[in-house]
């Protein structure tokens, strides 16, 4: 029956062999959607990825076809399936009951050897998820066509549905009463079909995960001795081919028709079962696979046909078409044992088959063997009759969208690059000025601590009892006043904040309290360095055992890769995405990007208690490791920001602590003294070299030195904008230079060094170590704020959170109209109302919880408040979802929140945001029929002459159409409010008369 003129059989040497070279059964084979890679899963517990292009190209016969060997499973690998579309993931199921999700590791591109074996990997596929749920062998896996779901089935009779992006378990389907041995998704997306040893095929609805129908007829006499029952849904959605059916005593190939779910006895288009019987003989049909392509026959018959491959226990493969009464092809016995898995290549011309005998066979069909492939659009048209909706195919209509997408891609890349280059090496020089600092150490080896791990505190605890204390360079060098109170007390007070509590295993070291070594490579002194030194932290535990904190090399997956880093892996992978948001907030507009990065290493604030210390002090109010981390440059900023502060320089010491700091109730961390500070400008660089008591500033533009200055104290922070550059020194002095390098003022002297510094246009903001805020208008030489305490911001937050999560300041900035903003660690954003002389909370983190779904405003349109909210939300893992509008009457809390935001938008002068929120607010009021409030809003919008510039701006931006706009909302959604609309309209008309509104 074979047609050698139209088909070629290739037997590649692909095999899974045991140590003696015997071939191990291959249970599963699957082709990557892009066609290059083929994965096989075998009895030998390994998964192998092969290069199909090489094996099918005779000219490349000398190239290696094995790309990767993955030996992580502990049991036979029963099923391997690539995700659809881009094939980003490979899912594997094994009889060790576990499903693994693999992803190509682009970080280590080099060929690597598999540890403990002779195999070399050309590509590195590594586990990114491990899904546990099955209590027995995982026999089948299937990705839905859009990758939205991954279904798994197994011998525990269960089917699990996983989210194809986050890999959260969504639901469990339990209606089967026997081993479930095959799964297939409906290409339309409405159903999932499963076949089980309980002699049924069940069709599940994806809308509610209930059984749509139960098909038993073809299986009444089916044996249950098959390995798999891999059924297949035709690409046009019209039929399902089931495995292991019996017609009386004879094995047949049952094809079920969609919606009726009845058996079309023979293969599609055939009326006589005889044909089927002949070609399947007495053997069971184990597996069927529909060709992914639809083909138009080359002869004149008009219908498109589907091609189906059938593998069976008789060791043969036959190929069927809906358009012909006989199989198109049937192979001789190409295997020695039964066929276990079949897969078509994406182009539909190559069929890969794997067998129990451990070999793989490739059937190549020449162009035209099946007719002409049908174009994707036509296939979709056919699917549409069953309700298929095309997704992910929205055509980009404007260039802006394209630009944003492109930007996103760049961000993603640079995120990755920065992670590779900078991520793991993040040094955390969190040396507390008074107590702890690195013990004697060669200067080039700042201990590197995994950035994600706030556990250094545990080590410090051990250290504090070590005799090294007196050698502490911070004390001897800096000569700062030592704390009057015992270090022990202080440390235990501060340690909860630094994360010991949240770090479960940190407790060991705390208990231990022996001597601590912190060295680059354990005892490497004197021994020749043969390889890159491992940077690890060694602690001696109570029982004398060493405990090593390993050097963190890199995380599981790149943080920017959208789905992978969400919810299910919160503690470790999440931060980086959060950071991004946090820096965004304090970057009010694109024009002000040329600003100092906040990537500044901070020392811990002084933890000495003031004389006569009161227990309720803000001793915990300092930056934690995690917070410093958040001050790292997010790569988003790196990509867009023009100014960048280079902090790679080595740390000289912690900044001196001025006596005033010890007296203060509020203490913040200050940057440590670096040997060198660099700030990259658009076309130049500002460098500061700190030496002893002086610091030399050099500004270069286009390679040439533009100006040089020297100041008498080490510089801790630099800030730069178009018109001036600001340097903050350790002794609390602040130097402001013009862009040409002139000192605009004599140095400003503050009582303590700056913790944060920010400038925006003509405004300069400084937050000092003792929590006082200063803001100036440099252009007019006036003070906006002078020594306003930050205590209210911290206090409220402290009271409202538990003791372990004391509030810290994460960022401070100033808006372009001179309003200071402060972001705290519990995601509240505060502004200082200059004329009211008080702190106001703009974004309350409790309003960004899950009950408060954010408005669906595209992220890039978010204003300052929006970004602050968004960030708060991101940190809580609340995803962007419905709009306020979709939840009418969420209640007074939402209204209250909107009112807060509206007024904040007015204060910081952000008309676009005011408009956005006004929109939402009016809608809410309308829904809730809040007539009184609404009237007030209208009045306020119209005047009376209160000098509401915002209203004017609003007017401008809407081209005076806001009657129409507001009216459409009010009248359109609630007739009871018609009258207001009318009044409003009339008032507006009067207003639109040439009477000047500006006051």
């Amino acid at each position, binding site marked *: 029956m074979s047609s050698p003129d139209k088909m070629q059989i290739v037997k590649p040497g692909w095999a899974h062999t045991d140590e003696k070279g015997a071939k191990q059964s291959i249970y599963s084979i699957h082709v990557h959607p892009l066609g290059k890679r083929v994965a096989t899963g075998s009895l030998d517990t390994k998964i192998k990825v092969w290069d199909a292009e090489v094996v099918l190209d005779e000219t490349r016969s000398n190239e290696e076809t094995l790309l990767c060997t993955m030996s992580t499973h502990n049991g036979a690998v029963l099923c391997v399936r690539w995700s659809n579309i881009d094939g980003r993931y490979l899912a594997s199921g094994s009889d060790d009951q576990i499903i*693994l999700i693999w992803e190509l590791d682009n970080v280590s591109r080099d060929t690597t050897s598999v540890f*403990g074996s002779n195999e070399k990997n050309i590509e590195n596929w590594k*586990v990114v998820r491990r899904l546990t749920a099955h209590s027995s062998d995982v026999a089948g896996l299937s990705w839905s066509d859009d990758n939205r779901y991954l279904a798994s089935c197994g011998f525990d009779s269960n089917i699990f549905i996983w989210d194809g992006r986050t890999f959260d378990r969504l639901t469990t389907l339990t209606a089967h009463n026997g081993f479930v041995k095959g799964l297939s998704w409906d290409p339309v997306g409405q159903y999932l079909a499963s076949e089980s040893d309980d002699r049924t095929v069940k069709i599940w609805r994806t809308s509610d995960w209930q059984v749509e129908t139960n098909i038993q007829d073809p299986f009444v006499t089916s044996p249950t001795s098959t390995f798999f029952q891999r059924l297949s849904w035709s690409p046009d959605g019209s039929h399902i081919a089931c495995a292991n059916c019996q017609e009386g005593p004879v094995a047949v190939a049952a094809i079920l028709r969609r919606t009726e779910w009845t058996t079309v006895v023979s293969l599609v288009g055939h009326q006589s079962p005889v044909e089927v019987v002949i070609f399947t003989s007495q053997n069971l049909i184990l597996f069927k696979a529909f060709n992914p392509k639809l083909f138009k026959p080359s002869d004149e018959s008009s219908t498109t046909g589907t091609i189906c491959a059938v593998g069976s226990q008789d060791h043969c493969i036959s190929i069927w078409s809906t358009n012909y009464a006989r199989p198109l092809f049937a192979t001789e016995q190409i295997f020695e044992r039964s066929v276990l898995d079949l897969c078509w290549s994406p182009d539909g011309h190559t069929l890969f088959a794997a067998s129990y005998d451990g070999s793989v066979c490739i059937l190549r069909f020449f162009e035209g063997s099946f007719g002409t492939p049908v174009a994707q659009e036509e296939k979709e048209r056919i699917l549409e009759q069953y309700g298929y909706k095309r997704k992910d195919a929205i055509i980009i209509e404007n260039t802006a969208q394209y630009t944003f997408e492109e930007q996103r891609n760049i961000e993603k890349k640079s995120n990755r690059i920065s992670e590779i280059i900078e991520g793991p090496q993040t040094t955390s020089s969190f040396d507390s000025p008074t107590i702890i600092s690195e013990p004697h150490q060669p200067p080039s080896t700042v201990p590197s601590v995994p950035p994600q791990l706030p556990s250094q505190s545990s080590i410090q605890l051990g250290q504090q009892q070590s005799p090294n204390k007196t050698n502490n360079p911070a004390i001897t060098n800096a000569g700062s006043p030592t704390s009057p109170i015992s270090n022990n007390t202080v440390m235990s007070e501060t340690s909860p904040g630094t994360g010991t509590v949240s770090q479960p*295993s940190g407790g060991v070291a705390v208990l231990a309290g022996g001597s601590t070594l912190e060295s680059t490579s354990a005892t490497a002194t004197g021994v020749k360095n043969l390889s890159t030194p491992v940077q690890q932290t060694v602690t001696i535990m109570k029982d004398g*055992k*060493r*405990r090593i*904190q*390993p050097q963190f090399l890199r*995380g599981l997956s790149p943080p920017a890769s959208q789905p992978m880093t969400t919810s299910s892996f919160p503690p470790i992978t999440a931060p980086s995405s959060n950071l991004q948001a946090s820096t965004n907030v304090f970057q009010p507009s694109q024009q002000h990007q040329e600003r100092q990065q906040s990537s500044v290493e901070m020392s811990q604030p002084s933890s000495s208690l003031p004389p006569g210390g009161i227990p309720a002090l803000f001793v915990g109010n300092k930056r934690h490791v995690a917070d410093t981390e958040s001050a790292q440059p997010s790569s988003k900023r790196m990509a867009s920001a023009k100014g960048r502060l280079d902090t790679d320089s080595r740390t000289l010491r912690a900044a001196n602590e001025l006596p005033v700091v010890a007296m203060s109730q509020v203490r913040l961390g200050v940057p440590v003294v670096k040997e060198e500070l660099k700030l990259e400008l658009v076309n130049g660089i500002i460098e500061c070299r700190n030496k002893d008591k002086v610091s030399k500033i050099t500004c270069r533009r286009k390679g040439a030195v533009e100006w040089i200055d020297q100041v008498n104290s080490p510089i801790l922070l630099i800030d730069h904008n178009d018109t001036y550059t600001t340097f903050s020194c350790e002794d609390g002095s602040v130097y402001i230079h013009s862009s040409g390098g002139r000192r605009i003022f004599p140095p400003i002297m503050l009582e303590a060094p700056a913790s944060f510094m920010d400038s925006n246009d003509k405004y300069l903001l400084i937050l000092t170590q003792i929590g006082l805020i200063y803001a100036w208008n440099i252009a007019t030489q006036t003070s906006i704020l002078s020594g306003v305490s930050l205590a209210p911001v911290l206090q409220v937050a402290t009271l409202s959170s538990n003791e372990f999560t004391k509030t810290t300041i994460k960022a401070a900035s100033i808006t372009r109209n001179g309003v200071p903003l402060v972001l705290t660690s519990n995601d509240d954003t505060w502004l200082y109302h200059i004329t009211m002389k008080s702190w106001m909370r703009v974004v309350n983190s409790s309003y960004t919880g899950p009950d408060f779904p954010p408005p669906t405003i595209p992220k890039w349109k978010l204003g300052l408040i929006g970004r602050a909210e968004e960030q708060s939300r991101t940190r809580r893992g609340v995803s962007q979802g419905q709009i306020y509008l979709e939840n009418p009457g969420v209640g007074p809390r939402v209204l209250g929140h909107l009112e807060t935001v509206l007024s904040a938008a007015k204060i910081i002068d952000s008309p676009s945001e005011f408009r956005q929120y006004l929109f939402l607010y009016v809608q809410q009021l309308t829904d809730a029929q809040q007539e009184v409030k609404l009237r007030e809003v209208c009045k306020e919008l119209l005047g009376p002459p209160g000098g509401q510039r915002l209203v004017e701006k609003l007017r401008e931006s809407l081209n005076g159409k806001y009657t129409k706009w507001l009216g459409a909302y009010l009248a359109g959604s609630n007739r009871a409010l018609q009258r207001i609309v009318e009044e409003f309209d009339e008032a507006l008309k009067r207003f639109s008369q040439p009477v000047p509104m500006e006051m």
Partner: protein
Amino acid sequence: MSLVNITDIKVLDNPSLFGADFRFEITFELIQPLQEDLEWKVIYVGSPESPEYDQVLDSIMVGPIPPGTNKFLFQVPAPDPSKILPENVLDVTVVIITCSYRDQEFVRVGYYVNNEYLDEELKENPPERPIIDKLYRNILADKPRVTRKPIKW
């Protein structure tokens, strides 16, 4: 399957004197956060006949470990020659690195070790009591044997 996967072990200072410390640079991958530390051990097999002469050279705890790729240096003292039968000091034996979680061993990496004199004279006529100072140790670093065991994580 294992949550911890050894991706590489570099044997440093190899070959070296018999009395020198063993130094292994171990790189491993963790795919899910662990509650507790990992315990690593190095065992020197003192006799091919009996486990009685096995010496645990050192055991350490490793943690906390962030998911991802991690690396540490495991330096352990050389075996005490007095606890090895003189006839077993020379020649081939095995050094084993094991890793356990919650007292369950899940991976074991074995290396062949060859102890010999470099001095031709001594090579030809090895003294009855081994001269430890002149004895060199060579680990067959490129041929690790890895045995994995499923455990409850």
